[in-house]
C-alpha cells in the first residue's frame, strides 16, 4: 500500500520532470542552468508513548530531498526556478509526501516584475506567530512550527513606485492543509480526513483568490498592508463518522481579510506589530501579535550577540471550545498568550546559533518550550537540534491534546 503510493508519487514527479526538462532543453542552453539543493536526514524522538491508539511510540526517521534548478537568460531579466520536494518517512503515511515548492517564471523590468507559476510568498515581521502571512497553505505534517508551506499557484505582478511596492496576486487553485496520519504524532485525538473535504464556495478548490498588498520603508519604519479575498487557509474541523471511525472533516469557508504589519528599527530595538481583521459568513474578528527584540552586541567582551524577544498575542474570538462551538465559528490557540525568547549568535566560523523560547497561555493552564540550535560542519554540512516541550492540564488547550508529544528532533543537512 505504502510502496504503491510511493511509486505513484515518484512516477508523477518523474513525468513532470521529464516534461519540464524536454520543454526547457529546447529553448535554453545548459550553461545557463544552476543546480543546487539539499538532502536532509532527520530523526525524531518522542519522550513519552503516544496518547492515542495507533500512534507511533518513540522514534520517527525520515529523509528529505529538495533540489533547486535555476535557469536564466537575457542577462537574468528572464528566469525559471524549479524546486521539487519529497519526504520519505518510516512511520507516518501522511508525512511521506511530495510537493512542488517552486516552479516559477520571472520577468524583470525597471518598474515592474511578473512572477508566474508556483511560489512561496512570505509577509510579516513577528517571530512566534505569523499572523499576516496568508498566501501559502501550511504544510502541517512537516514540522511543529507551521513555517513550512506548500507551493501556491499564482500570477503576481509587482509594481515598484517611489511611494512603495504594490503586489497584485491572482491565486488559482487552492491547496488543502496537510495533517499527521493515524500513526503520526503531534495530532488531535481523531485524524483529519483527507478525502471528504468540503468548501463553502461551489467552485471548491478551483476558486480564484485575490490579494493586493502595498509595502514600503519610510525611515526607521517598514510597513505593509493588504486585502485578501478568497478561501480561508485555516480549515474548520468537525467530528464526523467515516468507515465506522470518528474523524475530523475539513471545511474551508470564504474570507475577506485586511492585514497590517509594521516594524520600527530604532537602534538596538526592533518593535514589531502585526494585526488582521477577518470576515467570514459566520463571524468577524480581529487578532494581533506584537512585541520587541532587543540586541546586546558582543556580550562579555566576546563575539557573542544576545537578542531578547518578547511578544504578546491576542485574538477577539477567544479559544475554541469544542463543547459549545457553533458551526462556522472558529477559535484561536493564541488568544491571550505571552512569548519570551532569547537568541544567541556565536558569530564563529561554523555559525553556531541557539534560540530558546517559552509561550504561556494567560487564560488557561498551558505552556510550551522550544529550543533550536544549529551549526555548520565543514563547508557543506549543517546539523540542527530542536527540542519542543508542551504542558497543559486544561482540556480546552491545544497543548492538552499534545501533552504526550514532547520531542527532540535531530537533523543533518547536506548542501550541494
Amino acid at each position, binding site marked *: 500500500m505504502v510502496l504503491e503510493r510511493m511509486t505513484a508519487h515518484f512516477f508523477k514527479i518523474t513525468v513532470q520532470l521529464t516534461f519540464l526538462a524536454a520543454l526547457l532543453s529546447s529553448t535554453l542552453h545548459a550553461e545557463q542552468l544552476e543546480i543546487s539543493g539539499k538532502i536532509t536526514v532527520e530523526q525524531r524522538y518522542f519522550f513519552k508513548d503516544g496518547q492515542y491508539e495507533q500512534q507511533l511510540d518513540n522514534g520517527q526517521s525520515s529523509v528529505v530531498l529538495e533540489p533547486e534548478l535555476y535557469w536564466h537568460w537575457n542577462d537574468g531579466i528572464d528566469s525559471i526556478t524549479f524546486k521539487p520536494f519529497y519526504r520519505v518517512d518510516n512511520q507516518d503515511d501522511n508525512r511521506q509526501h511530495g510537493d512542488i515548492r517552486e516552479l516559477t517564471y520571472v520577468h524583470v523590468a525597471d518598474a515592474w516584475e511578473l512572477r508566474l507559476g508556483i511560489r512561496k*510568498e*512570505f509577509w510579516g515581521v513577528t517571530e512566534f506567530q505569523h499572523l499576516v502571512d496568508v498566501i501559502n497553505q501550511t504544510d502541517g505534517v512537516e514540522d511543529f512550527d507551521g513555517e513550512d508551506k506548500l507551493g501556491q499557484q499564482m500570477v503576481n505582478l509587482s509594481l515598484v513606485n517611489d511611494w512603495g511596492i504594490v503586489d497584485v496576486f491572482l491565486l488559482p487553485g487552492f491547496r488543502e492543509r496537510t495533517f499527521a496520519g493515524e500513526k503520526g504524532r503531534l495530532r488531535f485525538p481523531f485524524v483529519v480526513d483527507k478525502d471528504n473535504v468540503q468548501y463553502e464556495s461551489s467552485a471548491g478548490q478551483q476558486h480564484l483568490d485575490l490579494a493586493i498588498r502595498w509595502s514600503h520603508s519610510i525611515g526607521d519604519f517598514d510597513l505593509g498592508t493588504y486585502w485578501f479575498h478568497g478561501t480561508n487557509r485555516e480549515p474548520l474541523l468537525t467530528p464526523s463518522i467515516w468507515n465506522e471511525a470518528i474523524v475530523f472533516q475539513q471545511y474551508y469557508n470564504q474570507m475577506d481579510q485586511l492585514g497590517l504589519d509594521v516594524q520600527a528599527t530604532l537602534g538596538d530595538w*526592533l518593535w514589531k506589530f502585526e494585526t488582521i481583521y477577518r470576515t467570514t459568513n459566520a463571524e468577524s474578528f480581529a487578532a494581533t501579535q506584537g512585541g520587541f527584540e532587543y540586541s546586546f552586541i*558582543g556580550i562579555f567582551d566576546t*563575539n557573542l550577540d544576545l537578542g531578547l524577544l518578547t511578544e504578546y498575542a491576542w485574538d477577539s474570538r477567544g479559544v475554541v471550545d469544542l463543547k459549545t462551538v457553533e458551526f462556522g465559528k472558529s477559535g484561536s490557540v493564541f488568544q491571550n498568550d505571552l512569548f519570551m525568547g532569547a537568541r544567541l549568535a556565536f558569530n*564563529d*566560523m561554523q555559525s553556531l546559533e541557539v534560540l530558546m523560547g517559552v509561550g504561556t497561555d494567560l487564560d488557561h493552564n498551558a505552556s510550551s518550550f522550544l529550543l533550536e540550535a544549529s551549526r555548520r560542519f565543514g563547508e557543506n554540512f549543517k546539523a540542527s537540534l530542536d527540542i519542543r516541550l508542551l504542558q497543559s492540564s486544561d482540556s480546552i488547550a491545544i497543548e492538552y491534546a499534545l501533552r504526550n508529544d514532547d520531542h527532540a528532533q535531530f537533523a543533518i543537512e547536506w548542501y550541494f
Partner: protein
Amino acid sequence: MMIKKMIFSALTATTLTLLAHVSYALTPDEQKGLDISIEVKQRDIGWQDSSADMLMILRNKQGQESIREIKIKSLEITNDGDKSLTIFNKPRDVKGTAFLSFSHPVEADEQWLFLPALKRVKRISSRNKSGPFMGSEFAFEDLSSFEIEKYSYKYLGEEDVNGLNSFKLEQYPVDENSGYTRRVVWVDKQAYRIQQVDFYDRKDSLLKTLSFTDYKQYLGKYWRADVQQMVNHQNGKSTELKWSNYQFKNGLKESDFNRNSLKRAR
C-alpha cells in the same frame, strides 16, 4: 544625464573642499590628516556603480580554512553613502541569502536581509558595526564605504610601507558603537591608495592589521586592491579577501537596490 552627473560631482568636490576649510580650530596635524583623507575620497568619486566577486578565506590558529563566496554590487550615491547588495553563494547553506544596505555618513544605515528558506525579508539593526562579518576577522564596519564624516583625523608623519613612501595618519571613529578607539592608516603618496590599516580595540591595544596588495587601476582612474589580508594579533586568526571580476559603470540603477531585487538576487 551625463551633464547632471558632472555637476553633481563638481558639487561634491565643492562640499568636500568646504569641509576642509570651514572645519573649526583644527591643529595643523589634524588639518593635514583630514586633507589627506579628503584627497583619498576625492580620487574615488564618479565610478557610478560597480560589481565584483569576493572570495573570503578564513584561517584559524591551526591553519584550518573555511571559504565564503560573495558577490557585491554597489551604487554610488552623490551626497550620501552608497547603496549595496551583497549576495552569498558559499558556504552552501547560506546560498541565496542576500543583504541590502543603504549607508549614510552620519545617520544609521538602513539594512535588510533576505532569508531564502522562508522567503522572508527582514529589516535588521545596523547598530552591530563591531561584530564579525560571517565569522571572519572583518567587522561589518571594516567593509562599509569610507565617508569623511565617519572619523576625525590626525597626521602622524611619513613612513615606507609595501615599498612605497606613505603618509601615516590616525582616524578616530565618531560613532560610539564602533569597536575601535582609532585606526592608523598608511596612504601612499604616489596615488593616495590605502596600503595598510592598524586597528586598536576599545582598550586601545593593537587588535588587527589589514594590508592591501595587488592594486589594479580601472577606467584609468579607480584603484582597487585584488588582495586584502586581515590578521588578528590577539586571537591568531586571519581572513584573506581575494577580489575578481571588477566591473564599473554597468548601468545599475536605484531599482537594482530594492526589496524586489533583494528577493531575486543571484
